[in-house]
């Protein structure tokens, strides 16, 4: 099972909402990965063990793994394109 990490500013609401939505999409599409919601302050620790980073905050840094737009999963706008990027990262 591959790991995808998602982080938001307070860790109270948005990251978990996105995580639950993406986990459902992964399951429905039989993609062998799961999403872990973490606090933004600890996200760097999870990068090495993850295949993609779903960001709900502005990303100023370069990451060695694909960065996916998390707001797309929150609003549904542009969700298909972002999900495809995610699946590609899992299958890479």
């Amino acid at each position: 099972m591959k790991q995808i990490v998602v982080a938001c500013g307070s860790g109270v609401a948005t990251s978990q909402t996105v995580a639950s939505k993406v986990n459902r999409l992964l399951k429905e599409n039989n993609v062998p990965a799961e999403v872990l919601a973490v606090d933004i302050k600890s996200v760097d620790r999870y990068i090495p063990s993850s295949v993609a980073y779903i960001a709900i905050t502005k990303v100023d840094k370069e990451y060695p793994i694909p960065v996916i737009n998390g707001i797309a999963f929150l609003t549904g706008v542009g969700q298909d394109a972002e999900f495809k990027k995610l699946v590609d990262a899992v299958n890479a």
Partner: protein
Amino acid sequence: MAHRDTIYRELIQLDWEVADQTEFFDKMAAKLVELGYVKETFADAIKTREANFPTALPVEPFPVAIPHADPQHIIKPFIACTRLKNPVKWCEMANNDEEHDVKFIFMLGFLGGHGDADGSNEHVELLQILVMNFQKPEVMDRLVNAKTEDEYMEAVLSMEGL
């Protein structure tokens, strides 16, 4: 606690006049402190969090802001629903350089968070319900056209799934 039970009539603000986001936060925080929903630390906490992690959602037909602060500043969970008289500038979530003219604000006061399995699931569901409804023109029409706080409250409670 059911979602709709965290929407209080006394926390509906209709056609508030504020010059900018800071004035909105000051006014809202003062009211929340007075009514016992948040601690004194809330005003600074919400402003700092918003500056670092903005909360305007670029949804159609209208952008909606969902400001929230860390749980330690909250006393009693709430959703405070505001319609401003005139929109104020609000930065987009995850895209801080993009500004929106925001009139509709749903301030979320949550307890719990990571590691709080019970509390967090509720937030997840609530946020999904709200965001889904923000994108329904018929729901937003009711929010636009509500003439009194009671009508606004009814419009919010009419959201599917709430």
